[in-house]
């Protein structure tokens, strides 16, 4: 019988190995897509695309999206959504801006903006986790309200003329690299660490995997979901503050497509995990795909409208490529 027991085990291992390469190709579809894009643009413009200046550019351009995508990742790990991250970041930028223009010292203005973002996260989290409102409606509604508040804070205009020390946060450089890139790296590493190595991160994944199982294992599901929204609020606010510093201005809608792209990045990233769950590394690959695409198409001088068409198609292609794996089942 020992023989019988052994046989399948061995072959199991072998099989596992054999199919791993192919599986990796599919599972890594998103990564493959990123590499393919980089190669393509490099071949089109070998002189420019991978030069230091342009790589720095790309990193600079995606840094704030990366921060907001990290926030979105936390919420999506728990199996929820936060459509308000973009609006939230704009409001934080506007709050800091309005306070600074009113004479508040920079650190206090920044702190206040972070608090505002955190409170909005708390509001979302309370609605979703405690009042059981679907995350989609709750955050859609709070997005609507938050944009309205931003309009009120900015008086509908674009605020500017911030203290240079504030702008330096978004425009300054250290060793030739713009500061927002460092911020993005720190936020990404911190999020990665939290997701992977802390008990709260574990609990997020457990709740995202199955609410009931988590609850019966002693996880305080409501609090855990709440915390994800709260932190996402804080982190989005940080992104918005940096965006205001980076642009030297703040308006109610300057987050642009960050929310949409953040969601797209997380989805792109989910395909690289075996469990199909949101994960930080995947999200950052998704962010890079979006960033490389925008930069590369600009460098090739592609018409803005056609760029938009292509961006949508490439996102679909990347996700579909990885999706082939799940279709196999």
């Amino acid at each position, binding site marked *: 019988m020992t023989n019988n027991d052994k046989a399948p085990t061995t072959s199991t291992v072998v099989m596992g190995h054999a199919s791993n390469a192919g599986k990796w190709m599919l599972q890594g579809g998103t990564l493959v897509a990123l590499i393919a894009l980089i190669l393509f643009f490099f071949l089109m413009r070998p*002189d420019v695309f991978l030069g230091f200046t342009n790589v720095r550019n790309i990193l600079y351009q995606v840094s704030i999206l990366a921060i907001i995508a990290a926030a979105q990742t936390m919420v999506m790990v728990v199996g929820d959504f936060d459509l308000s991250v973009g609006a939230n970041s704009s409001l934080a930028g506007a709050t800091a801006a309005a306070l600074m223009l009113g004479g508040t010292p920079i650190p206090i203005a920044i702190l206040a903006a972070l608090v505002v973002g955190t409170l909005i996260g708390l509001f979302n989290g309370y609605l979703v986790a405690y009042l059981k409102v679907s995350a989609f409606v709750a955050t859609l509604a709070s997005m609507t309200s938050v944009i309205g508040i931003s*309009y009120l804070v900015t*008086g*509908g205009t674009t605020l500017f003329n*911030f203290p240079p020390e504030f702008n330096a946060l978004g425009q300054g450089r250290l060793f030739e690299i713009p500061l927002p890139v460092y911020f993005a790296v720190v936020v990404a590493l911190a999020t990665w660490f939290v997701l992977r190595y802390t008990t709260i991160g574990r609990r997020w994944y457990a709740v995202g995997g199955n609410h009931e199982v988590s609850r019966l294992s002693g996880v305080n599901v409501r609090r855990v979901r709440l915390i994800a929204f709260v932190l996402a609020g804080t982190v989005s606010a940080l992104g918005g503050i940096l965006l205001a510093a*980076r642009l030297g201005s703040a308006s109610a809608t300057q987050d*642009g497509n960050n929310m949409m792209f953040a969601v797209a990045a997380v989805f792109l990233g989910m395909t690289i995990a075996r469990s199909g769950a949101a994960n930080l590394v995947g999200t950052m690959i998704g962010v890079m795909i979006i960033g490389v695409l925008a930069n590369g198409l600009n460098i090739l001088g592609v018409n803005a409208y056609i760029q938009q068409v292509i961006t949508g198609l490439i996102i679909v292609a990347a996700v579909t490529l990885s999706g082939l794996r799940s279709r196999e089942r």
Partner: protein
Amino acid sequence: DSGGSTDGGGGDEPFRVVAFTSGNQTPIGAWWVKEVEAQAEELGWELTMIQGDFDFQKMNPAVESAIGQGADAVFDGYTDYASIGSIITAANDADIPIFAIDSGTEATDAFVLNITTNQQGIVDQTLGAIDEALGGIEGKNIMVIGHDPHPGIRMRSNLAADDLVAAGAVLAGGEIQQVKSPASGRTEALALVADYLAANPDGLDAVWVGWDDAALGASQAVQEAGSSAFVTGVDAVAEAIAAIEAGTMLATIEQPWPSINDDVIASMVEYQNSGTLPSSNFETVDTTLVNESNAADITPSDQLG
């Protein structure tokens, strides 16, 4: 196209211009992009044109990196200086002058030249038309529809509201009515006026709107409610001119963008040739009132190209 610049054929270094506009989805923005590209071709400039649909987060970095790759001048098309602080910093750091068309409503050191239209003149002309049509503004109920995020519209709608109140008119709704998203400006203005008229039938004598797209929505609401209120806009788009000819809109404003653009480009050429910067950094240009009498002769602003 910058693709062919690697093997420079001529002896002279070409004049390198980074041009950008955040309003490429507006007809005028689209015209400006084509116009500047055409003139650059003629002048032999090496042009980098960057367009963004009011997404400064995407546009600003692109402009800054273009500046970083070397430029002799920057050309701002229709983008308020408030939104491009980081571009201004980048250009200043690189010691590159910024020329601008319609980019902010007051003088600023950020630009070596910004030519725009005379907002007070626009307000005077449109309110004059309303005054004439109504036989006096005093005591009349007039709605002002604006859009704060756009500095030009914001300035002129504030001026219009102030002038109306000063002239003894009543601001319908008590304050300037705001359109939230330019994309749905027409629908929003339509609803604003329709709802106001539902609540106050016969309560509206005129609607002053800061730009034609929304004015067309307002005019549609006025027609549908059977109100006799007069509607004015600004921009002189073809549709507004047609509406004026059809009698559903009272007036609009033609802003002479082609000649303004020529003027800005002329001072850029001047700078290219002699290194001299314009003497004044802010100029305003007068506009033309478009009404029934001259509508047929006006080139619509969205058919400039």
